[in-house]
């Protein structure tokens, strides 16, 4: 070494040296495999967006980009398209489903984790998993034939007693209540309960036992422990679970298409017949669409794609923020 005296060493500022990273052949191959798997997922997202954009272009040009998102018309013969009403309808249905699903799912998660005896816990857990695996067409048919009648009863009760809330008003006193956004939203809610339940259950199960014991040892009731320890601990994860559910609700297609009395215009009367969503538009119109209408449907798909992407990015941001706060 050239530097021997302490003075000289002090003069020379030390910098991090190179570290040899020798990789074995097996590692290299495996890393390449994993990297290509990762690349495929990026490629699918990028490719889908690109495909949608290219195919949507003719309709967007014909209808005009601005008016496509600010009007509510669907007239393939003259090439006039606008999905504002359906965007709003999509959000209405997804919001209704969240309002129904979130309390149900969190209650279910807490019951499974905190209250139920071991045997019932096993039964409940597997039935929630089964619910998640059920095809949505089954939910749709069941909703259409079995659930509509009782839900109409609920809807007229809500209208009768809670019409002070604008949400529960009707356009006219005896408006039909079948095939409404409310009914569709409730059916979609049942479809997103499993995902919200199992994600928030997993999150809350991560809560350190010592925290729960501390709460109980202070004379806390089980509810007190849930309120003061479990829910604050799970806040970020539960938020994420709810937004995952919201994302699924936005895109739910078949059950909506089956039940809703489809309208292009947004229907602000949630309890009343009629409504629509982007996904149901595509399902309903696609079989008979040609040329420009296909392009317009793809443009609608692009709008749904964008909306789902935004919700997911928002979800991530919220989850990250609450994680930092906690």
């Amino acid at each position, binding site marked *: 070494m050239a530097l021997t005296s302490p003075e000289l060493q002090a003069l020379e500022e030390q910098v991090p040296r190179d570290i040899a990273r020798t990789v074995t052949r097996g590692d290299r191959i495996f890393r390449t495999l994993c990297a290509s798997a990762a690349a495929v997922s990026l490629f699918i997202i990028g490719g889908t967006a690109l495909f949608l954009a290219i195919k949507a272009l003719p309709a967007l040009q014909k209808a005009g980009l601005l008016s496509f998102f600010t009007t509510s018309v669907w007239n393939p013969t003259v090439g006039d398209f606008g999905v504002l009403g359906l965007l709003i309808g999509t959000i209405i249905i997804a919001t209704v489903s969240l309002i129904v699903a979130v309390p149900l799912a969190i209650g279910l998660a807490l019951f499974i984790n905190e209250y139920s005896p071991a045997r019932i816990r096993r039964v409940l857990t597997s039935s929630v998993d089964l619910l998640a695996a059920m095809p949505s067409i089954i939910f749709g048919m069941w909703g259409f034939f079995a659930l509509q009648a009782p839900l109409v009863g609920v809807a007229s009760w809500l209208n009768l007693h809670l019409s002070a809330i604008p949400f529960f008003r009707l356009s006219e006193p005896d408006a039909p209540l079948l095939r409404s956004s409310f009914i569709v939203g409730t059916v979609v809610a049942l479809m997103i309960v499993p995902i919200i339940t199992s994600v928030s259950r997993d999150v809350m199960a991560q809560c350190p036992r010592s925290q729960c*014991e501390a709460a109980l040892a202070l*004379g806390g*009731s089980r509810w007190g422990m849930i309120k003061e320890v479990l829910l604050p601990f799970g806040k970020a994860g539960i938020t994420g679970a709810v937004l995952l559910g919201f994302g699924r609700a936005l895109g739910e297609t078949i059950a909506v298409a089956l039940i809703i009395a489809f309208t292009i215009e947004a229907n602000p009367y949630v309890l009343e017949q009629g409504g629509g969503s982007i996904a149901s538009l595509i399902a309903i119109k696609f079989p008979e669409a040609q040329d420009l209408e296909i392009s317009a449907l793809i443009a609608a798909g692009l709008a749904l794609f964008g909306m789902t992407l935004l919700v997911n990015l928002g979800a991530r941001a919220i989850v990250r923020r609450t994680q930092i706060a906690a």
Partner: protein
Amino acid sequence: MTTVQSPQTAETPAANRQVVSSEILPEEQHPSSRIDATDVTCWFGKRKVLERCTLSMEPGEVTALIGPSGCGKSTFLRSLNRMHELVPVAAIAGTIELDGVDIYSEEMSPTEVRSRIGMVFQKPNPFPAMSIADNVLAGLSLSGMSNEDPKALVEQCLRRAGLWAEVSDRLNEGGMSLSGGQQQRLCIARALAVHPDVLLMDEPCSALDPISTRVIEQTIRELCEEITIVIVTHNMQQAQRVSDKCAFFLVESIGDPGRIVEAGPTAQVFENPSDPRTYDYVTGQFG
């Protein structure tokens, strides 16, 4: 820190106390409670981990539970405030009386038992999402109690736990920002805030450095004037330093349940034990 008690605690709202008879008494005259465990046997599933343990924990005294690992000390301690039953397969026999009332009977709810018999755990476990002050007050909101002057209660409890001087200027910071020893004293303050008659401590110093240990031992000696304390410890010197009474637990041979070999005044257990196994253990000639 008993000196600070006179003005503040005399004003402590009666609603905070669970014992009707003590409502009229200011804190310093508050008679602490006794626990009598009789023939306590504990199981986890089919495995019997503790057999026929009988022990009286006297008011205003520190009782130390000593013995090698796995001899059932912690299980015994957790049976004293009904934490044992939180393990799904746990079972218990015998009686445990708090001032003559069986805590496993209809006469007391588990939440009442646990707010009268507080607990400090081996590993400090402050609530991470709460500030220091909120941690101290956590027991009130958990058990639905209210307090007219939460600020004064926070100060009083932190003083009694010997932590006030170190945290008085940062009560709104997170509880996790404290050192391990401070966190443990925060947990003691949190347990004191619900005005327990008895405090159970499960190896409260085993995760701490000697200086923090010293502070907590001091706290224990000060607290025992008002609160009955039961402490599990692996540290023989600690048992000698803090306890008035000692119970030695032992598992005779592998697979057997733990039993109390000997219990008595600490000085006697350490200096003149009646059982040779106790002698072996306290003099370090064990096994």
